[in-house]
């Protein structure tokens, strides 16, 4: 059995240079910021290994549902539920997606015009929802 990490890490300097530069993250906890960056990375199917590590928040601050999302990504990535028995791997996967996701988000923010990032952000989420091909009321659209 692997050692259970006590914290989630990000790349060194990422906190100041990326996380704190994103307007959308203002007022959000580190955990929320991380999970969102992780989701972006996963959605874009890109993850990056962390060269260095810097503790971002403590695992104990996570709620069950936060951990569920991380677990779901790990299951998907390993294509096996057994990954759950190795928390080190589970969190590592999450960190790698977040590492890639935060960069993507930051780059997107930089490339959009001032004031239009929020609109772009909304559009991306709506597009992501549409890609799920769920019906108007959230039911799976079987015709397409």
């Amino acid at each position, binding site marked *: 059995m692997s050692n259970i990490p006590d914290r989630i890490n990000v790349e060194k300097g990422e906190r100041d240079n990326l996380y704190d530069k994103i307007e959308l993250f203002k007022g959000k906890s580190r955990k929320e910021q991380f999970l969102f960056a992780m989701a972006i990375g996963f959605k874009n199917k890109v993850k990056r290994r962390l060269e260095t590590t810097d503790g971002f928040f403590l695992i104990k601050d996570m709620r069950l549902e936060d951990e569920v999302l991380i677990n*779901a990504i790990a299951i998907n990535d390993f294509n096996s539920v057994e990954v759950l028995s190795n928390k080190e791997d589970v969190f590592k996967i999450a960190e790698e997606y977040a590492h890639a996701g935060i960069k993507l988000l930051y780059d997107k923010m930089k490339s959009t015009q001032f004031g239009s990032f929020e609109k772009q952000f909304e559009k991306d989420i709506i597009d992501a929802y549409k890609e799920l091909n769920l019906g108007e009321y959230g039911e799976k659209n079987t015709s397409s």
Partner: protein
Amino acid sequence: MKIDKIILKNYRQFKDAEISFKEKSNFDLHVIIGKNGTGKTNILSAINWCLYGDEPNLSKDSRQLPLLNLKSMEEGDYGEDKEIMVEVWGKTLNNKFVIFTRKTIYNIYESGKNLPTRISSEFEVKVTDNKGNTEIFKDEESESQVERFVPKRIREFFFFDGERLDNYFKEATGQNIRHAIFEISQIDLLENRVESRLSDTLKDLRREAGKENPEIEDTRSQLETNEKQLKEFDEQIKECNKQIALAKDKIKDYDEKLRGIPDIEAVEVRRDEIKTLKQQKKELLDEKLKEKENLLFEYGKVVMLYSPIKQSIKIIEEKRKKGELPPTQDKSLLENMVKEKSCLICGRPFDADVKKRVEDLLKEIKLSSEVAKQLEYMEGPLHNFEDKVMNFNNIMQKITKEVKGYEDDLADYEQELIKIDAETSGYNSEKIKDWHKERKKFEDSFTQNLQKLGGIDGKRKDILKNIENLKGQLDDELKKEKKVKKLKNQIDFCTKALNVVKKTKEIIMSETRKKIEDRTKDIFFGLLWKKATFKDVKIEEDYSINLIHSLGYECLGSVSAGERELLALSFTLALHEVSGFDSPILIDTPVARISDEHRVNFGKIFSEVSSNKQTILLFTPAEYSKDIKELLDVRASNRFALKLSSDEKETRVEVL
């Protein structure tokens, strides 16, 4: 009497001028044309100054200008006396020649330092009969000669500004007409000389009677106090009515001024309200946008992770189907038992057979207890996430609709602000606000005076009742007291006489009103260019004038300026006739307020009037338009042009 000529020397713009009004055609019509500032209105002033010694038609500013001609003043030496003279030459119906002469001597000081000082003034009237006998009247006698021509109190109906015609029925109609009829009827003679004298005599007689009997004295004193109070109430009512009429006129004036102009103060209040509402809505929108952003953030990650969420749910469901979940055996316990070769529950050591069976069992268990436990924990939140994604569209639609609602409201407010700005741009806000304030002031005055009037009227009725009772009481007391029998007879006589005077006054006023009404109607319909539009002109008992449309309704308020002016002119001519003073009519700027289409009609009307009455009209060149010129040039007995000298200090009168 007609005016034969006017001679002006050193009077305002006129250093030396003579204007002759001899009748040379069938129309006793005389036209004077002058640009503004050439002294046109000063001809009207000169007549007033000559006859009455004042210039009521001049503005306060104009009155402050020196009466002495500026050129004459410049030419004069320091300390020299200069004479201003205006003569009005007239001819009466019985062929008497009358010359009114007013002279004033001014002493000139050094130019530019002081205004000339009036040294002396004199007025005389020279009357020459058809046999050549001349009489000269001075002082009071000369004034009474003027009264025979046009009495001072009614001159405003003979010499006036054309604007008066337009305003006549717009301003305090009833009061104006009552005043006119009162003056024309000369009831003031009856009121001032007979009625007041009888009243004084009656009071004296009652006082005499009071000396004989204390009860009579007490009642008399009460009666006198009540009568005095009644008089005070009547004065107050008169004043209230005056203020009400004034307020009504002013309100109308301001309504006219403010027509089509926004109520800036109200608009500004509305603007502030909208700005506040806009700010509140903006704050709500910002909150809603933040809420939407938070929802997007919260739901966004779940949406993006929907596929692993679904995948995990699927795996868990499959494992349940296969019976792997929940776990029936504890894999790690079995692993430890194999390791320890004994049962960790009962402590019995494993033989080879048991060991093999446990090892086989372990091979069948695919999920570790830890993983299975985690999967079980995950199941609930995963379904919650799934529900969240399913609800995402609804929630986003709802909040997007709310945001749009706020944005639409904001856009509406913005539009309204733009509209207000457009409405108010180009207006002098301060001036408009002042007009509204002034209008409000008169509106308040109107309401207050109306309320006051109601109050006074009630008290007046009580006093009247008291007076009647006291009169009855006094009469009884006088009857009882034998000592005052003679006095009682005198008092009775005076009372009856006073009643007769009052009744006579009412009859004269009523008859005069009727005569003026009839003549106004005749003249109006005789001169009117639209014969079928109206059917009647009425002067009501409250002295308000009404023009009745052919369809039967009262329409004075809605007729054109031309029609209103014609009615005023007809009324004025009727007053002339009824007054018995056959004097000329002199109108300054007669068609200033008349629209182009009706000017020719007025030209015709003035021609027609001038066939029976001397008519002197003072036009500006703009007023004397081509159409009017074509009409009046051939009819007028005399036409004059007023030309200002290049140094603008003297006006010459040119015969056209």
